[in-house]
């Protein structure tokens, strides 16, 4: 018996395939899902999502979002998801630097709170990506 995992962002379906087990980074800590799990609806924290298929482990970084486990189907709803293998560290670092710099400027000049929030999201997401990638090394 295996799970059916779907990871969906507003822009596309990032992942849709079978998996033996999934580890979700929820707000209350990591939760491992195996087939036959009770129906569950939970919020995701930005972090690393693990997919284990036939003994192989795949990693995806996800932004905050939601996960629904129903029957043997795991649906993940998130605003951003990236395969760890695809992360380009330098690009991530650049994005992070830019955002951090902008945040500093913003703090001095009192920018729009919404814009600050957006930048913080960039920093948070790129940090998570970087951590995930470095763990792989």
């Amino acid at each position, binding site marked *: 018996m295996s799970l059916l995992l*779907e990871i*969906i*962002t507003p822009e*596309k379906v990032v992942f849709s395939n079978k998996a033996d087990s999934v580890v979700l980074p929820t707000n209350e800590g990591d939760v491992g899902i195996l087939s036959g799990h009770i129906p*569950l*609806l939970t919020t995701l924290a930005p972090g690393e999502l693990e997919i284990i298929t036939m003994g192989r482990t795949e990693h995806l970084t996800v932004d905050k979002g939601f996960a*629904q486990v129903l029957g043997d189907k795991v649906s993940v709803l998130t605003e951003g998801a990236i395969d760890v293998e695809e992360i380009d560290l330098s690009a991530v670092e650049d994005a992070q630097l830019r955002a951090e710099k902008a945040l500093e400027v913003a703090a001095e000049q009192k920018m729009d709170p*919404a*814009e600050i929030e957006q930048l913080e999201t960039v920093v948070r997401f790129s940090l998570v990506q970087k951590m995930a990638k470095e763990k792989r090394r």
Partner: protein
Amino acid sequence: MANTRDIRRRIKSVKNTSQITRAMQLVAASKMKRAQEDALAGRPYAVLMTEILSKLGGRVSDIKHPFLEDREVEKRGILVVSSDKGLCGALNANVLRRIVEIKDEARFVAIGRKAAQFLSRTQRDLLAEFTISDRVLFSEVRLPVEFLINAYYEGRVDTVELLYPRYVNPLVQDPIICPLIPIENLSSVIDKLGYQLGEAPLAHDKREIHFEPEAEAILEELLPLFIKQEVYQTVLEAKASEHSARMVAMKSATDNANNLVDDLTLQYNKARQAAITQEILEISAATN
């Protein structure tokens, strides 16, 4: 009768213009197709979102959330979606006319330069201006929405509404105002979404679900996401409208240019013939 050289020059310039408008028409057509594809790619997200929302909505009976409460409306908050560039027929004019029709106290947030220019020129209360690229990214849409949601929390605006050119068909774009916040009735919204997406009634799934954290907390997090998703879809639709309006405008411009070229060619031939006839007359008159 006009000089043949002048006519020839005009024909050339009109032909040039028609080439440009034709190129713009083709570009707009391909961009429209992409906007539509993007809108379709967002469908699974919308379906899953609705599914989760309906599961929560069915279980949480008494919800207290700022988005669901009924406030007295003093200032409406309106997000206007327009294009950055012109040359797209009456699209922007129609949207801007709707702004003029709004008589209540309102604050505006603009997406696209055309709306921003209009709002500042007519000295309306423009809170912020955002631009969005042709290839709409979710992260770009997030900004204006989060800005408006914050303004709503702070009480600077009492509603969040969207004014955008709805895509009816390639020839017709209809500007409409659609209210987002406050959400009047959660269950009716869910029903409507389910109907739009053509899904089987989701709310009747009564399997026991474990919520972690409790359902109220999840719902609280989900609602802003839901609003963002709605706006993202709307902006995609507005982009599709823009490109199809531009495509149609440029097609009629190309047609007009071609007609003009035909007329001018006729005129040119007449002038040429007249000149030849004139010359023959002069020669034959001289030989006599």
